[in-house]
């Protein structure tokens, strides 16, 4: 038990020391506020599913989902995915319609290092909701 925790802590510290760039090439806060139009972002409704510890940052499976019935009256229009410690903090913007049926997407991304990913969903009623996920990344997937 003790040995396992120690090794995990050591790996996490190493990943953090190696991987986070000094500064991102785009401003994550600007990207977020232009996406939301300056509206407040509430926590909840959005989930990010992925491994907690990622050995290979070059190909990281990730699934996003925002809760919605996806009817004509109310649906998720867009989800923005940010990886703030990557060279470009923005990963993608996904757009949905009622024909989507569910506001979900699964893909594979690159991650530079230990960080907290953020997914923000915009709804037709004007509200914005966010989900977060902290991960450790052992191999920088944005270089080499």
């Amino acid at each position, binding site marked *: 038990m003790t040995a396992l925790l120690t090794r995990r802590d050591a790996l996490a510290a190493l990943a953090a020391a190696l991987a986070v760039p000094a500064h991102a090439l785009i401003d994550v806060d600007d990207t977020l506020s232009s996406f939301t139009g300056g509206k407040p972002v509430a926590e909840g409704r959005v989930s990010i599913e992925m491994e907690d510890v990622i050995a290979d940052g070059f190909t990281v499976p990730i699934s996003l989902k925002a809760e919605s019935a996806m009817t004509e009256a109310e649906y998720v229009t867009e989800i923005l995915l940010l990886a703030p410690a990557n060279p470009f903090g923005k990963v993608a913007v996904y*757009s949905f319609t009622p*024909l*989507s*049926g569910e506001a979900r*997407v*699964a893909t594979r991304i*690159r*991650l530079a290092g230990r960080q907290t990913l953020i997914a923000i969903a915009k709804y037709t009623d004007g509200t914005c909701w966010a989900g977060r996920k902290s991960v450790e990344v052992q191999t920088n997937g944005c*270089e080499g």
Partner: protein
Amino acid sequence: MSAAPRVKIPDKAAKDEIVDVRTFITHAMESGLRKDEAGQSIARRIINRFEASFDGRPVFSATIEPAVAANPFIRFAMRATASGDLICTWHEEGGNSWTAMAHLEVT
């Protein structure tokens, strides 16, 4: 450089069933951040846009950045409303594009 755009959905679905759409294209998604063995920067070349529509109606789209891994795989959902064709298009920065199609029969 780029090939084999693919889209996979079930052949048949019940009306209003939510079906899974799996898409894939072979592409390096060269970020512009990497260097070759001589230390020279490798030019950026990425797919930056993906669009899916069913009989002309938008279902799902994505604007993607270099943080998306090589050989982009995108899986999303679609509500089966009527029989028709799902058309997916991948756009590369600079103008190239590729298309794939799949037919859905609503029973």
